[in-house]
């Protein structure tokens, strides 16, 4: 039967032993050389932000993707870890405690885990709406406390410190961004590896089982509640680490680290990357940081594009960006990936032009409507023109229209090529 052929042709065994090290080594190398490629301070600052978000998102996905628990208040654990680290940092400064800075995130992790234990004790008895709403409620409460309880949270100004007072670590005082970068990278590799391994342990596996069918898991000797609780704790721990790194990187923590907007964003980030794959949140964090930080340098409308991107992602790639990538694995495995190359170029380039053209139109409308009087000049894609003249409008519209038309006409060919590439080479037609 045809589906037998399919099963046999796929040697990938879900959750199988092939703990291949290659991606990890590549990732480590990349982390090491990236600062040499993007070597100005702002790139490093942005990368620091990215890696912190990566840890946070991975930790979040331990709940969402692996445990099926939707949390609306996860910023709490990262924030709490961060605040504690900030206090420890200040303690180090004030009392000369001999603590090397690189160990600081550990405190954050433990504190994050402690908070998770406390709240998990009441919230993990269910996974559905109840869990989500308790997390929301707690999130709101903690966020509200952050402005009321000034002693710990420092009000809306937050608390700040200076990372350079810790014990020098092999002569490194963490004065420079690059030093912080390597510290963060180290923790990133360590946390990611640990989180990955966690998903392969008995608790990690049972987290999946409980996500799918909590009741049945009970009849296999596992208490769904405890399984959730352990996942929650582990997630809290890594969130706290991310918080600690945040404290080191920014040397300030504020109400923003706890509020529900941050909690919401991490959900979006994780989803954008793809909850179904371990590496999904990594891609999501990178993409979102670029969007938020780099795109917002280019346009005020960045949130508009972000919203549109989220809509497009859920509608067309519910597996997130990681899902999009993984879609190509079968054709690659069949050795058919090359069949896709030409159709992709034929469709995606005009597709890209369509998207950029539409964005250009949006920008032009925006400029036309909201630009100051007399300021008719605008610059898009390194071209400066008059947004009140007719010509640019016609040019952009025509380019966009034509590109759209080409995309539309070449799309069926791509679809066909796609089907073609995903047919196992051995299978003889329909049966």
């Amino acid at each position, binding site marked *: *039967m045809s589906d037998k052929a399919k099963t046999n042709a796929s040697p990938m065994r879900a959750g199988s032993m092939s703990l291949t090290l290659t991606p990890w080594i590549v990732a480590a190398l990349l982390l090491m050389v990236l600062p040499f490629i993007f070597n100005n301070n702002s790139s490093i600052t942005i990368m620091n932000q990215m890696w912190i978000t990566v840890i946070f998102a991975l930790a979040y996905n331990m709940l969402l993707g692996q445990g099926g628990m939707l949390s609306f208040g996860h910023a709490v654990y990262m924030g709490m870890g961060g605040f504690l680290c900030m206090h420890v940092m200040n303690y180090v400064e004030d009392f000369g405690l001999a603590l090397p800075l690189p160990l600081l995130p550990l405190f954050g992790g433990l504190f994050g885990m402690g908070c998770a234990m406390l709240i998990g004790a009441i919230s993990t008895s269910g996974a559905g709406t109840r869990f989500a709403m308790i997390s929301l409620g707690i999130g709101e409460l903690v966020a509200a406390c952050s402005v009321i309880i000034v002693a710990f949270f420092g009000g809306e100004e937050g608390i700040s410190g200076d990372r350079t007072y810790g014990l020098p670590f092999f002569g490194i005082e963490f004065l420079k961004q690059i030093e912080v970068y390597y510290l963060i990278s180290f923790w990133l590799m360590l946390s990611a590896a640990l989180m990955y391994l966690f998903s392969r342990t008995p608790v990690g596996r049972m987290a999946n089982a409980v996500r799918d069918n909590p009741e049945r898991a009970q009849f296999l000797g596992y208490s769904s509640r405890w399984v959730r609780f352990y996942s929650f704790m582990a997630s809290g721990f890594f969130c706290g680490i991310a918080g600690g790194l945040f404290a080191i990187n920014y040397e300030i923590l504020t109400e923003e680290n706890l509020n529900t907007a941050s909690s919401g964003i991490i959900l979006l980030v994780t989803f954008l990357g793809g909850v179904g794959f371990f590496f999904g949140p990594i891609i999501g964090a990178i993409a979102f940081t670029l969007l938020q930080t780099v795109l917002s340098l280019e346009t005020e409308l960045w949130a508009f594009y972000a919203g549109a991107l989220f809509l497009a992602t859920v509608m067309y790639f519910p597996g997130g960006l990681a899902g999009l990538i993984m879609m190509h694995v079968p054709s690659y495995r069949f050795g058919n990936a090359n069949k896709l190359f030409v159709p992709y170029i034929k469709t995606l380039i005009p597709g890209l032009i369509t998207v950029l053209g539409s964005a250009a139109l949006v920008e032009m409308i925006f400029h036309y409507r909201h630009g100051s009087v007399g300021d008719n000049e605008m610059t898009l894609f390194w071209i400066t023109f008059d947004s009140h003249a007719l010509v640019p409008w016609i040019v952009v519209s025509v380019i966009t229209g034509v590109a759209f038309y080409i995309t539309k006409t070449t799309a069926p060919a791509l679809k066909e090529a796609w089907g073609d590439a995903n047919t196992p080479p051995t299978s003889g037609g329909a049966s």
Partner: protein
Amino acid sequence: MLEVTDLHAYYGKSHILQGVNLNVQEGEIVALLGRNGVGRSTTCKAIMGEVPPQGSVKFRGQEIAGKKSFEIANLGLGYVPENRDIFPGLTTRQNLILGMKPGQKAGVGRWTIDNMFDMFSNLKERADVEATVMSGGEQQMLTMCRTLMGDPDFLMIDDPTEGLSPQMVKRVADVLQEIAKRGVATLLVEQKLSIAMDIADRVYVMGHGQVQFEGTPDELRGRDDVRKEWLEV
């Protein structure tokens, strides 16, 4: 009444139905047999439009392949799914009421709620209990009754006797014959060969996603080769 020609259906890339041909005449009980996983349920789903069908499905001469399932249902096809799909949060009675077509008035048609309760007294006892807590067998009865409430002219039943006690199996067999008597044609997917052979006018045996045998129950009894090849392990 129902005429299926060269029906294909896929789940993703797996080609489950590979050209099924069958037909059901007015007032007839036709059984669809085959091994587990051979695609009998998929055939029903494809007819009902729940799985996209390729090929032709004609109901009273009208092409219904490609129609939405509620449109098909409103033409007079009834479908009793194998998974029961009892609606949680609703009582037995509410589940039955949902079986009625939009705009259908209570008491119009061949069946009333009371008929159902008469046929299956268990349901009557549990009329106002949330239906999902009922026993497996009771749920099975409810699923069938729910579809009957819509007063279909043609009924597809997927494994109606599953989980029923021997006595109830007998009862269901009687009900099926009663249904036929009231002029409803039936396509019956059934595991229990004996029942199917007893009440069916004709049988189809499926294998490899196609119909491999067609004939009366008696003909099938006489064909050991068919039974061996397509019905036993």
